[in-house]
């Protein structure tokens, strides 16, 4: 029991220790700030700022329910029109700063406080969406939502020369995710009216859309749409009641390789996408048919946190390939808040990248399923070029693996088998070298090469795209050369890699530095910190190795256990 509790706690700590790209949080920051700012400026454009927040007789705000004290801005500046306007404009300024990511954390704290003051000053106008956005702003204050697309990031990069890390803590996204789930669930179990259920013939939506205080259109169309609205009512209730399943569906979606019939069925039916799609449709439907102001857009502003940043990146790449960079950024923002489920294509576990330039000069591994690697004999001229040894320094790389006779080592994305001979020699006749690749022709080539070079302890294996391709706990060492940057869900892959290694196992990841003149395009490259963080997320302890490679770095990841050196 105690062991079980310890395991659960360790898993919880590890979950909240995860890091990821900040894209989802950045999008949430921009969209939430836009929703808040838009709502406040709309009030200003209607000339109702005083009407909403000032006390009578100038406005409809009032102090009768303040308990035990008035809000601090009213205590400090007194009740009146000036205070209402002061708090309002501070909130506007803070929202604008949050939007552009200037002094982001301070802006978020100030905005949350000022929105709370406005809520206290006009409690009857402070609706559920205001509570939600305020909560979101408060959580964003603790996040690294300013790590990209912000003035702060620009200043850190250009002026202070201390750019934000590639990966940021993921826990604020998880917390926002949990908030969205709970909000829906709470809304579902608070629906007490018969009209929401079968006893009321699922008439709730029809009733609401017929209410002149909320409906955008006259109700002439409603009699014709009654069955559809009944289905919509039932779906809404089901959507809200099943919201606690979303984290489970998301987990299943992220770990398709794990066993379980329910997982398989849910993934096959794409239930996660169905749920999110219903949410998007539901809120856009509300925006079209009802006059609820910022409500539907404020809700959708939080939808980016339902996606892993890698999924957003894939959607961005997919858009960029079709409509260009600027249009893609605009569409992504729109898609994130309005059509995330619809605009983004369903990502495959490891989707193919565009074919890389042929003259890359490095192994664009078969991990991306690139058909260019169909002809291994041609690629052997590039990968096995004798000149490669000068910068690849294969002996030094293999030495970093600290191999000893009898060990089992896997070379992941081995291509034409450049390292095989050295690895084979290092583990000796009692050891084993597993050379994986997802391109069948590369595997064919390596088999022939092993036979040709009489490497009896080498086995070439055709691996799946999203896993190491060797049994759990079957190897002592792993080598990944010029491959890691091709893997899209690297944290997940790192966890798979940790499972493939024995306790005390070690992985060496060799990849191109950001500054190197060789290697993939710069936006494909990864900083060593990124690789280290990804390995840590997968359960490794990781550090940068000391070496003398001119164009590459080596990150060593270790698992705890007796074999660790």
């Amino acid at each position, binding site marked *: 029991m105690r062991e079980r509790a310890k395991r659960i706690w360790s898993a919880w700590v590890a979950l909240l220790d995860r890091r990821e790209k900040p894209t989802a949080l950045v999008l949430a920051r921009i969209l939430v700030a836009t929703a808040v700012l838009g709502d406040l400026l709309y009030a200003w454009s209607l000339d109702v700022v*005083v009407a*909403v927040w000032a006390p009578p*007789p100038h406005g409809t705000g009032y102090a009768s329910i303040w308990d035990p004290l008035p809000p601090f801005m009213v205590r400090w500046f007194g009740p009146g029109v000036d205070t209402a306007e002061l708090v309002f404009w501070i909130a506007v300024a803070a929202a604008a700063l949050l939007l552009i990511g200037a002094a982001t954390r301070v802006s978020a704290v100030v905005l949350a406080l000022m929105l709370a003051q406005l809520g206290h000053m006009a409690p009857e106008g402070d609706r559920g969406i205001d509570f939600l956005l305020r909560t979101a702003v408060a959580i964003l204050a603790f996040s690294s939502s300013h790590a990209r697309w912000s003035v702060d990031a620009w200043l850190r990069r250009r002026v202070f020369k201390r750019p934000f890390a590639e990966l940021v803590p993921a826990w604020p996204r998880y917390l926002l995710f949990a908030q969205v789930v709970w909000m829906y669930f*709470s809304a579902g179990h608070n629906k007490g009216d018969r009209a929401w259920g079968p006893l009321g013939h699922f008439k709730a939506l029809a009733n609401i859309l017929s209410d002149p205080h909320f409906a955008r259109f006259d109700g002439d169309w409603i009699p014709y749409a009654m069955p559809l609205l009944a289905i919509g009512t039932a779906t809404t209730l089901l959507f809200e009641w099943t919201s606690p399943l979303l984290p489970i569906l998301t987990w299943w979606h992220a770990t398709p390789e794990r066993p379980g019939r329910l997982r398989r069925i849910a993934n096959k039916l794409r239930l996660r996408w169905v749920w999110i799609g219903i949410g998007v449709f539901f809120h856009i439907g509300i925006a079209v048919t009802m006059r609820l102001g910022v409500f539907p857009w404020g809700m959708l502003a939080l939808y980016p946190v339902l996606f892993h940043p890698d999924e957003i990146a894939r959607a961005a790449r997919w858009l960029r390939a079709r409509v260009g960079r600027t249009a893609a950024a605009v569409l992504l923002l729109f898609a994130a808040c309005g059509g995330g489920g619809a605009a983004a294509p369903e990502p495959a576990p490891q989707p193919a990248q565009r074919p890389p330039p042929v003259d890359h000069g490095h192994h664009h591994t078969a991990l991306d399923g690139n058909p260019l690697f169909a002809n291994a004999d041609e690629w052997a001229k590039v990968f096995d070029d004798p000149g490669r040894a000068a910068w690849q320094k294969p002996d030094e790389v293999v030495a970093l693996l600290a191999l000893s006779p009898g060990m089992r080592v896997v070379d992941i994305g081995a291509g034409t088998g450049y390292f095989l001979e050295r690895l084979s020699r290092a583990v000796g006749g009692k050891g084993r070298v597993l050379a994986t690749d997802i391109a069948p022709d590369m595997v064919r080539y390596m088999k022939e090469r092993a036979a040709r070079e009489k490497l009896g302890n080498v086995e070439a294996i055709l691996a799946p795209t999203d896993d190491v391709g060797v049994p759990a706990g079957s190897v002592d060492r792993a080598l990944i050369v010029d491959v890691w940057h091709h893997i899209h869900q690297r944290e997940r892959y790192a966890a798979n890699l940790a499972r493939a290694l024995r306790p005390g196992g070690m992985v060496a990841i060799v990849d191109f530095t950001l500054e190197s003149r060789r290697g993939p395009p710069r936006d494909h490259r990864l900083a060593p910190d990124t690789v280290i963080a990804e390995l840590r997320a997968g359960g490794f302890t990781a550090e940068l190795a000391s070496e003398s490679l001119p164009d590459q770095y080596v990150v060593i990841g270790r698992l705890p256990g007796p074999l660790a050196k």
Partner: protein
Amino acid sequence: MSRAWPHVRASLVALAILVGLIDGCPIPSAKSVSPEWSDTVKSWARARRIVMTPFKPLGELLRLRQTWKLFPTARIEQHRMWVEARKSGTKDDWEILYRPHDAEHSMWADRIEYRRLRGVWNPGTKGTRSGYGPFVEWLAGEIFERRADIDRVRVRMEKIVIDPGMGGFVPSGMFELEKTQGRMRWKRQRDKEAAAGGKRGGS
């Protein structure tokens, strides 16, 4: 510190989630349950109040809560607000200025229907809200400022029955929650404010 921090953070996040769940846990009101359950739900509510006490200042400061309601009721008995004005010198010549979903009477519809203002005047399940009176005062003041021919403003709620099968709602012709504001009273108030050096509304 660096080794302890992940555990501290995990504890804080777990605490935040736990407090949120306790705050949002649906405890029915004592009146809504059968008498034998009444004491039980009261004790639950009391326990929640005690547990939440240390977190109340933070909740108040940021005005947070975890109980969410999106159209919890969809009753068929609703209201439709009428904003009317009477011209000076007439006794019962009321002119309709605004009614929801009435294209001919849509004065300041955007302003009146701004969601935060609607939250003030739209009657809830328990009837009119506290801000309703100040809303009528404010609206009347705005009208008096712009229409010199008006001497009285009346806001009232017509009882309607929602009937989606008939294409919307059925007006009953019966009104309640009526409030009126006269120009003289508004003028006295304004003069008093001016004498005190106060600022009138308008952002």
